[in-house]
């Protein structure tokens, strides 16, 4: 599908049916059609403040964020808490890191020993853009 519909209009509906369907017979399951599953209800609690991003790079592989196969769901309305994964702006560029409140101050830490944590202190051009609430990774690419 090409267009992403407005979040609150979109419905990805998978009917959940109790029982199997006998062929050539009016489905007795028809009486048991329960709710339908809308992925949005699971993944998006505040559509107004929800944005998507796609990541490239390997600094977060320890958090299962795959270098090519992951989409992030970001909620801008949340305040970041200790150990949240956040989208931040550092020196005018987006990045994704783990947000740590440590005795020595706030750090943006990678989930890959190859990368050093970035201390966020006065005078550093950095801000939190949003909190990552879910990531979706394409299993067949991992």
């Amino acid at each position: 599908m090409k267009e992403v519909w407005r979040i609150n209009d979109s419905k990805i509906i998978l009917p959940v049916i109790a029982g199997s369907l006998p062929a050539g017979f009016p489905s007795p399951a028809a009486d048991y059609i329960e709710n339908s599953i809308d992925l949005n209800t699971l993944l998006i609690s505040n559509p107004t403040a929800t944005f998507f991003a796609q990541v490239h790079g390997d600094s977060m592989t320890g958090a299962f964020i795959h270098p090519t196969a992951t989409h992030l769901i970001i909620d801008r309305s949340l305040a970041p808490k200790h150990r949240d994964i956040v989208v931040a702006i550092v020196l005018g560029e987006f990045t994704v890191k783990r947000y740590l409140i440590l005795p020595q101050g706030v750090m943006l830490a990678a989930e890959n020993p190859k990368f050093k944590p970035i201390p966020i202190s006065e005078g550093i051009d950095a801000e939190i853009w949003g909190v990552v609430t879910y990531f979706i990774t394409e299993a067949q690419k991992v």
Partner: protein
Amino acid sequence: MYALVDCNNFYASCQRVFEPRIRRLPVVVLSNNDGCIIARSNEAKDLGIKMGDLPFKMLDFLTANNVQIFSSNYTLYGDMSARVMQVIAAAAPKYEVYSIDEAFIDLQGVAINELEAFAKRLKRNILQATGLPVSVGIAPTKTLAKLANRWAKKHPETDGIHVLGTDQKVSVALQQTMVGDVWGIGRQYEQMLNRHNITTALQLSLTSESWIRKSMSVVGLRLVKELKGQSCILLEEMQPPKQNICTSRSFPEIITEKEDVRKWVMTHMASCAEKLRRQNSCASAIHVFLQTNPFRMQDKQYYRSITIPLLTPANNTPELLFYAGKALNAIYRPGYNYKKAGAMVLDLVPACERQGSLFDSVDRLRAEKLMNCIDSTNAIFGRNIVRYASQGYGERWQLRQARKSPSYTTRWQDVIKIQI
């Protein structure tokens, strides 16, 4: 009391949310077809760039000052606007979407000493959810709220919030606002008032009501009463459907051939038809116009338009295209360098109240089904995926939008890309 919430430099701010790199750089956004500048960040305003400036005439200046230039991306602006309005809706039961980046709120029920805190909270929530900065003006009437908002924008020390809560504050704001900057005062009234030595909003508010009524009609009188703090313009929670719809555009290049002009006229008319169906209206007449470029002094000039009344009000594309074709045949003349064409639909009536004609030979039910089908297909797969042959094919019929940003919020391929 009323509040006016207005996004600061809305289009430029939308671009900035998704490109942190340009947060402190001057940003301009261009009109359809990249013709002229229609939005500026504060930094761009400070450089002296004006609305309507032609980017191609000042490219060296723009590059030298590192101005970031964007084609307009209405998909993005529309989605971001809807998000802002949703935050407002969550905060206030009664509000009116006044334009893509402004909304009025009826603050009945909010105590006077809570207004400032209400505005602060709303401003913070909108910024947090969408990344967009807004200004809030609060006053006893909509006209004064507009004025308060302007004040908040002009005075950085207000932090984007200004409440005209006392008569004293109202008269200071009126004193320092020129009549031409009052909501609803156009150029002609401004000149007329200036001739009568009325230059500030305060002077206008003190002018005798009978004189205002005589020289500016009841609309002017209503406006002056609003300046005095008597609320006369109510909140319109439902936008009335548009009374006419116009689609027109300058061609990306000069066109001389009739067949090329036809494709544009047809594309514009098809777009009008789609908008008609979206607001559930039918047009009673169509209007088509065609013109050369008045700035090319060396060219012979030509402008002509024609209006064709329809026997039965209609909103189905083939019928409107048929009449648009007739209209073009009537006004097209060979031998001119054409620059612009447009299509308009007029005297709109609700689709359900359409008066049938005795001689109507169109199977309207069938046409309606077909149009529904086309509209929903195009909604999923993209505009003009299903279209009429007369609209033409090929890249040449696309808008010229050389610097368009991705539709970050409405297309999977376009979501923010982050290198980590």
